[in-house]
């Protein structure tokens, strides 16, 4: 219940935050929403000597309409994603999916950046970012760089984010016309992580699936994009056959860990079920 002692820093700029990270190294952890880190510290699974609180850095907040892209500050909380008129208009997958994360109070603090940077395969935003073809802006002592979501999630609790870097923002392409989307998340109760989740963004033109990105949550050591499932749909009309083929491909790509939510067989089957639902819902919105 009680975290161990630590020193607390509340920088006002990204630069200062990066400076602190560089200076303090592995003894420091970044504090974003705190709803992953603080419980871990209360249970004493994490015992950083320093906390660098990102909540006072205005540069990290905000949702900016950039025309054919939307820029989302890493410290944007889930409720701000849900309520954003820009996202509702241009990237409606995010507001809808964010409502499936945690609960109302946690959504006032939990940030999209924290959800992504943690590298936790159970989190939802990684699969969403993959399905959205997002890219991330990282800032370190050497300056800024962009990394595509496709290249960001490397392994369990491992991302492309270096120890001395901070995730600054996520950029997402605005949905062109005729884009359908869905995120289907099977969970035991409100606030639970996904037993299996499937994110789909697709376009149907002339009755054929012209573009599709499919990603799965919590059925592997990271969120995974399933190209084989995408290929099963691309270039043809949607049919029960192609949807089933996509689901089969997804199930083959799965490598879930057994836990109290289910064994490997169940989670794999549910990845397939969630994907089928997500494809159908996305298609209905094209």
């Amino acid at each position, binding site marked *: 219940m009680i975290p161990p002692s630590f020193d607390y820093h509340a920088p006002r700029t990204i630069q200062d935050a990066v400076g602190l990270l560089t200076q303090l190294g592995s003894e420091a952890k970044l504090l974003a929403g705190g709803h992953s880190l603080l419980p871990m510290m209360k249970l004493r699974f994490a015992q950083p000597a320093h906390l660098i609180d990102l909540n006072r850095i205005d540069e990290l907040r905000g949702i900016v309409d950039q025309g054919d892209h939307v820029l989302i500050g890493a410290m944007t909380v889930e409720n701000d994603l849900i309520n954003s008129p820009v996202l509702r208009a241009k990237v409606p997958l995010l507001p809808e999916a964010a409502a499936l994360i945690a*609960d109302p109070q946690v959504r006032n603090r939990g940030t999209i950046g924290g959800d992504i940077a943690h590298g936790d395969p159970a989190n939802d935003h990684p699969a969403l970012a993959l399905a959205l073809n997002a890219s991330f802006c990282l800032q370190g002592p050497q300056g800024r760089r962009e990394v595509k979501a496709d290249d960001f999630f490397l392994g369990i609790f491992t991302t492309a984010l270096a120890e001395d870097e901070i995730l600054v923002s996520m950029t997402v392409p605005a949905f062109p016309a005729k884009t359908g989307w869905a995120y289907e998340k099977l969970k035991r109760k409100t606030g639970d992580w996904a037993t299996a989740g499937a994110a789909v963004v697709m376009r149907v033109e002339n009755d054929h699936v012209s573009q599709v990105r499919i990603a799965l949550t919590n059925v592997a050591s990271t969120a995974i994009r399933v190209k084989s499932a995408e290929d099963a749909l691309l270039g043809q009309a949607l049919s029960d056959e192609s949807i089933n083929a996509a689901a089969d491909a997804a199930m083959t790509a799965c490598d879930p860990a057994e836990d109290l939510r289910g064994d490997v067989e169940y989670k794999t089957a549910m990845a397939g*079920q969630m994907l089928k639902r997500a494809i159908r819902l996305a298609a209905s919105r094209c």
Partner: protein
Amino acid sequence: MNDAVDPTILERTAALQGMGDSRLRKEDARFIQGKGNYVDDIKMPGMLHMDIVRSPYAHARIKRIDKSEALKLPGVIAVLTAEDLKPLKLHWMPTLAGDVAAVLADEKVHFQMQEVAVVVAEDRYAAADGVEAVMVEYEELPVVIDPFEALKPDAPVLREDLAGKATGAHGPRDHHNHIFTWTAGDKHAADAAFDTAPVKVSEHIFYPRVHPCPLETCGCVASFDPIRGELTTYMTSQAPHVVRTVVSLLSGIPESKVRIVSPDIGGGFGNKVGVYPGYVCAIVASIVLGKPVKWVEDRIENISSTAFARDYHMDGELAATPDGKILGLRVNVLADHGAFDACADPTKFPAGLFHICSGSYDIPAAHCSVKGVYTNKAPGGVAYRCSFRVTEAVYLIERMVDVLAQKLGMDKAEIRAKNFIRKEQFPYTSAFGFEYDSGDYHMALQKVLDAVDYKALRAEQAAKRADPDCPTLMGIGLVTFTEVVGAGPSKMCDILGVGMFDSCEIRIHPTGSAIARMGTITQGQGHQTTYAQIIATELGIPSEVIQVEEGDTSTAPYGLGTYGSRSTPVAGAAIALASRKIHAKARKIAAHLLEVGEADLDWEIDRFKVKGDDGKYKTMKDIAWASYNNLPAGLEPGLEAVHYYDPPNFTYPFGIYLCVVDIDRATGETKIRRFYALDDCGTRINPMIIEGQIHGGLTEGFAVAMGQQMPFDAQGNLMGNTLMDYFLPTAVETPHWETDHTVTPSPHHPIGAKGVAESPHVGSIPTFTSAVVDAFAHVGVTDMTMPHTSYRVWQQLKKRGLAL
């Protein structure tokens, strides 16, 4: 003081806000303004904080405990282990079940998260740091998790402290991990019935371990005053007087100098009945250090180490005629009690009131046998709104009746109606010797079947079963339970030798308001309101001005506490009878004031009236004033009474629950489409409060049946001991509840009330199982073990070729 215009009878009754009135609660004011007084709200000058070092292993020897690093930390004052408690002979303590339990692990640990040492510090943060710094060296021992494995000849010895003890508190022990074997009923008659029965069914039914998980965890503030030699302890206790007696016996401090106070309690549900090591250690620390010591556990500690519930492996058999008349019942149970038998049962009943398992049915011959066994898990078993194992008993019989119905191709409602104890048979003595007080099961069942249009539901189910493409499986669950509460008659029921009576004292003040104290203790049941309502109707004083106090052993009369729905049956009776003593004295005073004989008076709502002269009367308010200054000769001043009530019998509330579920064949998710709960608790004191209790009990039942579990791996690690995994449903998951009632008063209870709040838990859990199993009944499934998570239900779907 007569009013110029007499209000009507209805108005005067309404003004009392007495029995039957859904009046709003008197206790709410403080809770809605954040001014409740829970244990963790209590601060005392100089108060220290205690935290507990716990074992990561389920079975291990303790090689070494090193306190030195912990003692170096700023703010840490003391570290206590079993060694420190030994000179006080407090390293072990007696349990309520006749066993002993370690207070702090003595040379070995018996379950994961068992208490090994305590750290006392200036504040809770330093205490937590101290816990991290205590170094304990363990040598792991082979772990026993499976109770069946525990009874094998070569099973590891768990209780070395019981080595050589061939007799336990409840009879002979025939194995080193065996606790007791308890039987009830007539084995000879039951066996005879089975030998000749044309139809027999049997089923192995497991009721898994779950935990009551009240929102407030357990804790205490112990304060020993060395100058006065007095010990005061604020404690999350459902039975403060029993605790006082136990603490006095353990500590040697005379009971007159021990005060236990149960302040506001944030939910009990049976989790807060026993005496936990944390309480004992906090008391010892306070005595040793001469300062108040607070201990409040975390949620993980609560789930992992405090009184769990159930863990009954039951083999049930029914013998019957081909047309469904039950001839006999046999049940054998293996009861997993964990490392110590700490069950809060009445002394003579190590399996509680499990022998209510003949249920609502007229079964001529029955026998049950319960064998208790030790394993490397936390101690407990009787908790969670169970009425002393009635949850297990009702689950068993209701499942078995379904199994029998299925075997015979009979409708579940029809077979129940056929076997019900009939209204004319009450009072009815069961094959296990319980004397059921009253009931009308047939009427209640019909009421429910009509309300839900049962025939239409079955028709809908048939149509859906005929459609192979139907994406859901529909199930209808039905449970018709009788439960036994109100423990209990002292010749049968005692806790550590103290009979399970209960008590009430009432004192009327000169200006007509009153104070009343009872030996029970509310944890949300609304006693401050409902008890006042009983007195209001008995004495004609508005409930609004009747102050109800419980929980302080220095002022409240001795009682056995609140659990097992015993408050209204036992304390409620004491309240009525204490009121009637006052009423009798008041009649004498009224006669004196009105200058008539007692026989010339009628009592009407709030006053004694002279027969045939409506204008001549004295209200209870008038009488109260007179009782302090104008009494007939020979009568002492004052207007008060105390009554200790030893109930002549238990009470037998009953209910009819029906549940409709739709199972998603793709995922195994179960939607509760409808839940209809009809309860009969006899006389209803406050319908609003009853309904709230039913909602709560049904919701806890839903959680148990559909999601709660306490899985152990082979090393005895308890998985899922946080609220991430332990299923407490939110408002989103929780179904909508429909409630209904009938009223069959208890003939032996002064106000006809039976007690109510455990029924919805007892009855709902088998209803959910009945519904889920019913969804698969057409493919031959006869039982499914809880919890019915989407994962487990999907496994059944897969197994039966029904998964989409």
